């Protein structure tokens, strides 16, 4: 009996010391190699003058196309040189565009000794290769086994305790304990990834009966936010290990999981969300309005669904430091398990979380404008580029409506605005 106790004690002691050891190592390593490695890649930017999204007038498009020569050819409606403008914009977007680079991991200015962030670097010298080898040994030999052990223990304990708590008859006790169990689970996962998180502006932490929105980079976002306070998650019910975890979670606290078929029904989704939000005792809902993982250099279009519900929104900005390990999940390149393993074999996950003050929809503002306002706030805080493009472009083609808008604008340049013409005729 006492031997069993001893084993448990040793095991948990080992686990806790692992956590502290990992944190320490990562911070030490972090500081040292940032100063030590100095390989630079020349970044490269091209300004695209292509007029976007019709806020521009025909006059400004004419200015862009014809340049300073516009005053000379004012009676030419069409100029054969007009194609030069479209041609240049097209080639500039081939050389560099704002969208496609958001769907792959960010390129670093200096190499951080991980093969996976090694873009076009050749063998420089022996010292660097030796350092890389040493790093490889440390990461795969020491850090990875420790982290995997922690993760497995954490998830098993979490599943065990949530099921246990789910059996309790007393609702108040159950919700109190389930919160504790959830936090324990998330914190163990955070340690297993060695995520070093800095929370800013904790006074703006989301309150009950509201919706929390954040920019999405990786599934780990959930763990990072949820280790500070409990949220209700929204998502599709999966199968396998993830499905098991989801069922375990819902036993002890109110998450909103949808079946695959229900996901398409927007009214159903909206109804369930508003019901949850109306109950002020329930935890805030965590939603990622981008709908897909973006590589943490920009914030893409927010889908308006969660902004139509009409409750208070708490925006949160999450910014990862890519030097210690890029957290972006490129789902077309690797599956979830491989991704988690590569996260655990990076140096660390370092991120900052900013809680922003709550926002409400203003008078005369529709859901789309509200969504854009929230997006701009998040982008400004996190130092991310605010893009109007849809994250869905990762997988689907762009809507032809945008091309049609541009064609309409150009045709106005050629033949003039109809409103302008009728005014001229009256005079």
């Amino acid at each position: 009996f006492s031997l069993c106790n001893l084993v448990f004690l040793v095991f948990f002691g080992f686990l806790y010391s692992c956590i502290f050891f990992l944190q320490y190592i990562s911070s030490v390593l972090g500081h040292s190699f940032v100063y030590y490695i100095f390989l630079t890649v020349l970044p490269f930017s091209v300004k695209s003058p292509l007029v976007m999204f019709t806020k521009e007038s025909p006059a400004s498009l004419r200015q862009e196309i014809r340049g300073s020569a516009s005053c000379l050819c004012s009676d030419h409606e069409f100029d054969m040189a007009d194609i030069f403008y479209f041609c240049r914009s097209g080639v500039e977007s081939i050389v560099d565009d704002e969208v496609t680079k958001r769907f792959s991991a960010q390129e670093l200015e200096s190499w951080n000794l991980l093969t996976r962030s090694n873009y076009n670097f050749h063998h420089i010298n022996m010292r660097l290769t030796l350092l890389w080898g040493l790093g490889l040994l440390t990461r795969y030999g020491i850090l990875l086994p420790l982290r995997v052990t922690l993760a497995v223990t954490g998830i098993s304990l979490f599943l065990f305790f949530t099921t246990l708590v789910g059996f309790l008859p007393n609702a108040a006790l159950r919700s109190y304990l389930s919160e504790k169990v959830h936090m324990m689970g998330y914190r163990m996962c955070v340690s297993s990834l060695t995520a070093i998180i800095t929370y800013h502006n904790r006074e703006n932490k989301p309150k009950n009966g509201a919706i929390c929105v954040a920019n999405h980079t990786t599934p780990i976002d959930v763990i990072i936010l949820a280790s500070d306070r409990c949220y209700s998650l929204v998502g599709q019910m999966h199968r396998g290990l993830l499905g098991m975890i989801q069922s375990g979670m819902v036993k002890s606290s109110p998450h909103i999981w949808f079946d695959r078929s229900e996901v398409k029904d927007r009214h159903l989704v909206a109804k369930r969300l508003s019901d949850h939000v109306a109950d002020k005792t329930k935890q805030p809902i965590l939603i990622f309005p981008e709908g897909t993982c973006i590589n943490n250099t920009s914030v893409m279009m927010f889908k308006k669904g969660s902004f139509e519900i009409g409750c208070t929104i708490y925006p949160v900005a999450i910014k990862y430091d890519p030097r210690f390990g890029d957290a972006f999940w490129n789902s077309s390149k690797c599956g979830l398990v491989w991704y988690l393993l590569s996260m655990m074999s990076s140096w660390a996950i370092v991120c900052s979380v900013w809680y922003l003050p709550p926002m409400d929809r203003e008078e005369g503002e529709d859901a789309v404008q509200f969504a854009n306002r929230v997006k701009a706030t998040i982008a400004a805080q996190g130092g991310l580029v605010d893009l109007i493009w849809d994250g869905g472009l990762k997988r689907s083609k762009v809507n032809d409506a945008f091309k049609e808008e541009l064609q309409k604008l150009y045709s106005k340049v050629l033949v003039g605005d109809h409103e302008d013409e009728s005014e001229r005729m009256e005079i």
Partner: protein
Amino acid sequence: MGSRASRLLREEEIEEIKKETGFSHSQITRLYSRFTSLDKGENGTLSREDFQRIPELAINPLGDRIINAFFPEGEDQVNFRGFMRTLAHFRPIEDNEKNKNPSATEPLNSRTNKLLFAFRLYDLDRDDKISRDELLQVLRMMVGVNISDEQLGSIADRTIQEADTNGDSCISFNEFIKASFVVNIHICTVVLVLVNI
């Protein structure tokens, strides 16, 4: 974990491309990483679909014609050399060439070659003449459905009338060069800005 290009660019290749196109070493490596990031099939060549995946290009009214300019006659794949050769047209015009060799071929980014590139965007059948139909086709691409056929036709007729000097109601390359808009050729330059840290 992701897979980088199956091969890195060799030094000799970079030298050859440098001689042919005039891009600098760092520009070539940078454009090569852009090429590989567009190459989703990872077979060292780009297809038309790879270009169309760029949203800003897909919404450009002349997008398809520009993409066509990268592909040699009748082929569906373009390799890195071809890619660079086409992009070279958009380098800034250099007034003082270091190797001013009268017998050497004209650099790809010369004034004439830029104009030829633009001319070929109109002249789809490569007969060295822009016919009224070809002009109408490009006009239609640029305005979509917003202008009627008659109006577009009259715009085309007027343009040909002004540019055509030998009365064959087509615009040849010489007439194209001599037309008044040539002053705008400087816009046909993509300025590649390299930022040093």
